């Protein structure tokens, strides 16, 4: 070791030196970093399925006659991505109103759904979809799923509509 390195090392706090002597210290330092930075790509704490709620929901797209459309054939999206985009929109609507998305009203759900149906989905259309949704219109539906002691339950409602 050079004199400069020794001088630098003597100034490093003791707790910091001791931390690096712990087994697997490097792994835990990175875990801490991932937890602190949060969801800023490429960093992520990887929170997939960290919370299980007693209710969840699924979003899907139908034509004007309520027939479900195969999302991947019409859009560069999957049902799960539509749901994530809907949730992000819902969160920003609720944030502006000063409450969390868990307290969203039916009106908030419709507002987020309308944004997804009329603004977001048309920008995600494939080049040659099997049908012209701009001409025939579409509906965005949300199925609420929940479970209790009696078993599974579901309820579906229209949250957005792109009129022909």
């Amino acid at each position, binding site marked *: 070791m050079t004199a400069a390195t020794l001088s630098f090392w003597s100034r490093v706090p003791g707790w910091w030196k001791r931390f690096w002597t712990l087994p697997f210290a490097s792994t835990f330092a990175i875990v801490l970093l991932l937890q602190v930075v949060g969801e800023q790509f490429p960093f992520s704490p990887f929170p997939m399925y960290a919370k299980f709620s*007693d209710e969840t*929901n699924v979003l899907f797209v139908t034509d004007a006659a309520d027939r479900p459309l*195969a*999302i991947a054939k019409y859009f560069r999206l999957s049902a799960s991505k539509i749901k994530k985009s809907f949730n992000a929109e819902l969160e920003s609507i609720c944030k502006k109103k000063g409450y969390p998305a868990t307290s969203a009203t039916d009106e908030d759900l419709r507002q987020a759904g309308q944004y997804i149906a009329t603004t977001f989905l048309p920008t995600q259309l494939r080049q040659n979809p099997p049908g012209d949704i701009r001409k025939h219109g579409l509906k965005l539906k949300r199925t609420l799923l929940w479970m209790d002691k009696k078993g599974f339950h579901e309820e579906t409602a229209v949250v957005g509509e792109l009129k022909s």
Partner: protein
Amino acid sequence: MKYLKSFKWSNLRETIVPHAAWEMVLMRAFLLWPFWIVVQRTVQGTQPRPNGIAHFVDLTWLANPSAQMVLNGVFWIAGVLFVSGRAMIPALAAISAILVAKGTLINSQGATNHALQLITLVSLTMLAAYCFRWKRGWTRHESHVRAVHWAKVMIAASYVSAAVCKLFASSEFWIARVPYMALQILKSNLQTYYTNLENQSPVAQNFAYWIVEHPHLARMLFGAGLLLELLCFLALINRWWALFIGLGMVGMHWMIHVVMSLEFKHHVYLLLIFYVNAPWLLYAGWNWLRGGREKRSHAVVSAEVS
């Protein structure tokens, strides 16, 4: 038994596995495939909800087909340098920059996707490992060994972080709420159906009902998965621990894929490349067989002599 008798807690420490040069060349060559999958992904030319560097930089130009062609060219030049072990810092810097840019744009569409973070972090970690050894020479064998080790550390940290989220994200203990996983499985199954309008998986539906009927067994099953994630850092002890943890994690991802149709392809590739390390396993198996045959032939010769 012999191993158990010689077991010491002090042996449970992180060690840098002295991989052979050929092993690391193969690892880097295999790593190009998951990198390439990310590089060639088509992206939307908008960033309605910026994430990461998209807060400061406009990345929408990445959706341009001519920009994609340039990226492909840069990637393959950098890829050849990366596999050959030459000019590691410029090669990994180019690959990492492409991965960060693409992943950021994909994650700026309003939906967070957790498939691309780990592969990008592995690339950045390897780059950092080479940068730290700048003065000692980034093409030296020792530098490659350390870069591979840090890639393994990054993989372990991502799984431990996922386990930490499960333990601390909810006010209730995660294991206690495992029966509600059934609802998530039904949701995933419905989402897969609405994406392609193909029949729902009967395995997933049956599994959801099994969880509700056998909550304690389900807690044990998912608890084992949580423990595996939490103890993923043990893969850093030596090659054998890495193999067992790697196979366990690949098995866990396979189950998630069957039950929930959720694919974490990049994570599986990374586990197979760095933890399972099949080429070394084949080599070790071959050596073991050869050694055994040599021992047997020695025994025959010595028996004949005596």
